[in-house]
């Protein structure tokens, strides 16, 4: 029974979650796109005429990637936000690197990109976000979904850290290394529906399953969550730029 459950989580549920997220994101985007345009400009005028002020799209892109308003008003928050988003990007690349077709890390390496450091940065950043959210005045404007999302991210990252670091700490060497994860992901990409248990051997397979389950949950929640700001940060900043 537990094997079937583990299989469901690591294979069919992954497909369901990814499909759900894609469809959900498209629906959300269409819902917004189909609404009428705002009847007048929502621009805020810059203090002085600057180069970026004259190129609103470029200015908005710079706003999205450098978050100047956060840097100006809450520099520590900006540091953690920057680290978090950069690490997320690295995390995405690191997971893609698990595919046998992509070899950013040397083929023979047992490590993911960042040698486990990416996950630590993410975990620490999320802990900071949680700490900040539990403190006044952010606490007063928070809703349960804000805490649950951070908790979900924390659990995803901590299980990811466990997979990464537990591998390193095992006296018998790597229990599940990059080649094994590569085989699992390759099977997913090629729709082989193979049972990952056949390649992901070792005692902490349950942590891998938990990690995948939590990631699936994130994907299922994604279209309803504020993570969607990933897709709308640019058009919103463009509105401010005019």
């Amino acid at each position, binding site marked *: 029974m537990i094997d079937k459950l583990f299989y469901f989580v690591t294979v069919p549920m992954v497909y369901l979650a990814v499909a759900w997220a894609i469809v959900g994101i498209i629906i959300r985007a269409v819902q917004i796109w189909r609404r009428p345009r705002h009847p007048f400009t929502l621009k805020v005028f810059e203090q002085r005429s600057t180069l970026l002020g004259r190129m609103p799209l470029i200015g908005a892109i710079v706003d999205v990637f450098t*978050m100047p308003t956060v840097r100006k008003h809450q520099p520590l928050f900006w540091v953690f936000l920057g680290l978090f988003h950069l690490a997320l990007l690295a995390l995405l690349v690191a997971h893609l690197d698990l595919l046998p077709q992509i070899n950013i890390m040397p083929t023979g390496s047992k490590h993911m990109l960042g040698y486990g450091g990416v996950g630590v940065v993410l975990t620490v950043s999320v802990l900071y976000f949680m700490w900040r959210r539990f403190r006044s005045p952010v606490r007063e404007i928070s809703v349960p979904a804000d805490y649950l999302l951070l908790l979900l991210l924390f659990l995803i990252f901590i299980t990811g850290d466990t997979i990464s670091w537990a591998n390193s700490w095992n006296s018998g060497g790597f229990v599940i290394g990059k080649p094994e994860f590569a085989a699992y992901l390759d099977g997913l990409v090629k729709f082989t529906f193979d049972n990952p248990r056949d390649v992901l051997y070792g005692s902490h397979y349950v942590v891998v399953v938990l990690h995948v389950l939590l990631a699936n949950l994130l994907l299922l929640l994604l279209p309803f969550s504020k993570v969607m700001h990933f897709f709308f940060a640019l058009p*919103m900043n463009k509105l401010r730029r005019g």
Partner: protein
Amino acid sequence: MEDDQRQELLKLFRERLTSAVRMYMENCTRCGLCIEACHAYASSPETRYSAVGRAQNIRRLFDRYFKLSGKLAPALNEAIDLDDGWLDKIYETAYTCTGCRRCMTYCPFGIDTQTIQGIAKMLLIGSDKEPKVLSMLSDMSIAKGQNIEQTKQTFAQAVHNLESEVLDMWRSEGGQEAVPLDVMGANVLYVALAGKHSMIPAAAIMNAAQEKWSLSYFEAVNFGAFVGNPQKTREISQRIIDEAVRLGVKEVAICECGTAYRVMKQQMGELPFEVISFVELMARYLREGRIKVDRSKIEGRLTYHDPCQIARNGGIYEDPRYIIEQLTGEFVEMQPNRAANWCCGGGGGLVAMGEKDFRMKSAKVKADQVRDTGAKVLATACENCHTQLSDLNEHYQLDVKVEYLSNLVAEALVQD
């Protein structure tokens, strides 16, 4: 609340959901960065008087009625039913915010709280709970437009009575009317407020510049925008647009009234004439040498308050500073200034509504900012700001003289 009424209100809500507003509704991360942007929070500090605090009152309704997650798991985002009790919270969203949009300069996404505030105002109008004074004033403005032929003569007589005061400021050339009305083909249609304080200095300045101008029969202030009714906002502005088209003017110069300027400049679409602020017109006259001012008229240090709707939301930063440079050598900037300037706390209809206790409490940070300049003269270019700053001056004993820029210029005009 009856279900029929709720459905009517939700219909009004839906109508305000442009693509921009929908993005604003769905993508706030509640990072809290905007909290400290609001003068009301900075002066209190209570999070209900923050941009996100106010927006949450509307966002929770949005989650309840327009999102699947709000229907399936309302507790997650604290989605809430629309009822009479919640309308009181909505009132807080609508009429404790001045619409200054300072929070937009903090938000990493640039969420415009004023558009969310617009939903709150619409819901209150739909449930007949909006401040009646604002509705009444906007209705009066519209009625004036509908009956203008009957009031023209009275208005012309009232304007005629002001002429001697205009001539006291600037002795016009022979044949030049002190306050011209109905001038076909005028370069400038000047739209004043109801009080003579916004007519006399402006008339003297335009006469000094030998401008071909005409005074509008209509007042600039747009109570439709304050109350939050887009249809009334348009009707009130349309009276001026029709008049400008009838006269065939090149420019419509809006007096020192921030909201009137922004509504006409940005919210009325393409117009067959240019819309400028009177501040821009004064700066132009000075640059072109059409008027000259005496630099010794102002005594003591002068500071300038950037009205939100003219500066942050209108982009007019340098013209007032240029004017001040011509008027005095003792100018000191407020800190922060320009786009980062603190709102005076009187916009969004709050001055018209009275609300003095709240206005004074919520603008302590503004009073501190003014006091820190050590200025003796506090200039601004907006009626609401002027009233609010005058109240703050009295309440916090700031010991400044609050002045309109136009009045400072008019009083310093040099007659050859």
